[in-house]
């Protein structure tokens, strides 16, 4: 009987009422990798980089170049890089960790739906919607916080609930009131689009990685040797692309949220 990975991450054991799922274990391992890398880089840094510091600097500069292209200024890039770069590396490492042999094959025999089943201890962290949703919520909420910090609460709120524009249009009268009413409606739609951002971000990543897991399981089930290789390569690519997509979209949200709205255009 072929066991396809279920949609929901399986709990391996419980700590009190907290279910420790296999995806949670994977994300813990990813955290551990970051911890070790961070600890190595935290120590005294040489002006002339070598070894690991060199690699880290290369990756950082590479990312900084991409971030620069979106934000257009170095100061903003340096502010967003910890968020965007952290997202990118975390997603990338979690995705690629799912391709390491042992993920999905080492497991515990547990009773699932009344049957003894081998439940894998490791499962790609992003094939759990809890993880992707947590990141998406964090990204969108951070973009709002930074937006408010950058242009002020009332100006920022006016992006969504355009009472200020409506009030200004009343003083001008005529066609301006109609335009402002329409824009007020558009602002309400914007509020929903913020929720849609979270949903689309989280579901896109989750769907891609989960589908990859299912695909690999199915292909490996059909032919065990050689045939899954191109698919695994494809998953490497998907993992990379999804990491880029998630972090780039977050970067765009951050940039858009912190940009001043051209309010003068309405006048």
């Amino acid at each position: 009987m072929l066991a396809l990975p279920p949609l929901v991450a399986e709990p391996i054991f419980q700590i009190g009422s907290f279910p420790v799922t296999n995806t949670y274990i994977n994300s813990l391992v990813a955290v551990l990798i970051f911890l070790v890398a961070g600890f190595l880089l935290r120590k005294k840094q040489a002006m002339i980089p070598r070894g690991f510091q060199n690699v880290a600097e290369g990756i950082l500069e590479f990312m900084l170049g991409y971030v620069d292209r979106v934000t257009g200024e170095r100061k903003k890039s340096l502010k967003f890089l910890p968020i965007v770069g952290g997202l990118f590396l975390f997603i990338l490492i979690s995705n690629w960790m799912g391709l390491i042999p042992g993920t999905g094959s080492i497991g515990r025999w547990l009773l699932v739906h009344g049957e003894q089943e081998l439940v894998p201890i490791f499962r790609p962290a992003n094939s759990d919607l809890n993880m992707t949703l947590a990141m998406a919520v964090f990204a969108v909420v951070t973009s709002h916080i930074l937006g408010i910090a950058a242009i002020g609460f009332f100006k920022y709120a006016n992006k969504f609930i355009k009472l200020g524009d409506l009030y200004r249009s009343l003083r001008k009268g005529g066609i301006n009131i109609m335009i402002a009413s329409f824009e007020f409606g558009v602002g309400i739609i914007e509020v929903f689009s913020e929720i849609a951002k979270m949903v689309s971000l989280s579901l896109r990543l989750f769907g891609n990685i989960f589908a990859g897991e299912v695909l690999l399981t199915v292909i490996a089930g059909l032919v065990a040797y050689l045939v899954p290789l191109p698919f695994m390569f494809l998953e490497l690519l998907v993992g990379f692309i999804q990491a880029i997509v998630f972090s780039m979209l977050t970067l765009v949200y951050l940039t858009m949220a912190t940009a001043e709205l051209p309010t003068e255009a309405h006048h």
Partner: protein
Amino acid sequence: MDLQSIILAVTETAQEAVEPLKDGGVLGTLGINWKLFIAQLINFGIVLFIFWKWVVNPLGRTLTERQEKIEKGLKYSEAMEEEKKKFDDWKQQEMKKTRSEADNIMRTASDAANKIKQETISSAQSQANQLLKQAKTNIESEKVQMLREAKEELATLVVAASEKVLKSKLDSSKDKELVADSLRNIK
């Protein structure tokens, strides 16, 4: 493992997935569990914190510092090069100036030396000429004087001789004597 069993497995998984929908709703189907959500959020937060505090901050600082250092170094080397060029130009100019000055000095010196030489020569010549002329005039006047003196003496001698001859009768021996005497006197 054939296709049929795979389809069967997929169907079963789908059925299993739909089952919790009856009690947990869509979120339950997708496995959303607020405890796990918070736990994953904390995990991600830790990752971000590490990345921000231990990687981006120190590395970013190092990168900026290094960039500044390199820029400073480049600017410094550029400035040095310019300075060197300026110095070279100045040196070249100074060399040219010095050389022309030296040439000038040499020329004036040699001119002066030539002039002095010429003057010395001409003055020496004129002096020599003068000396010569003076010597000549001196000799001339001395000669004249001597001649005059000789004539005078001769005259007195002649007078004396005539007196002697006239006093004593002249004979040939006396004459001879007289002549010799006169000659001795002239000498």
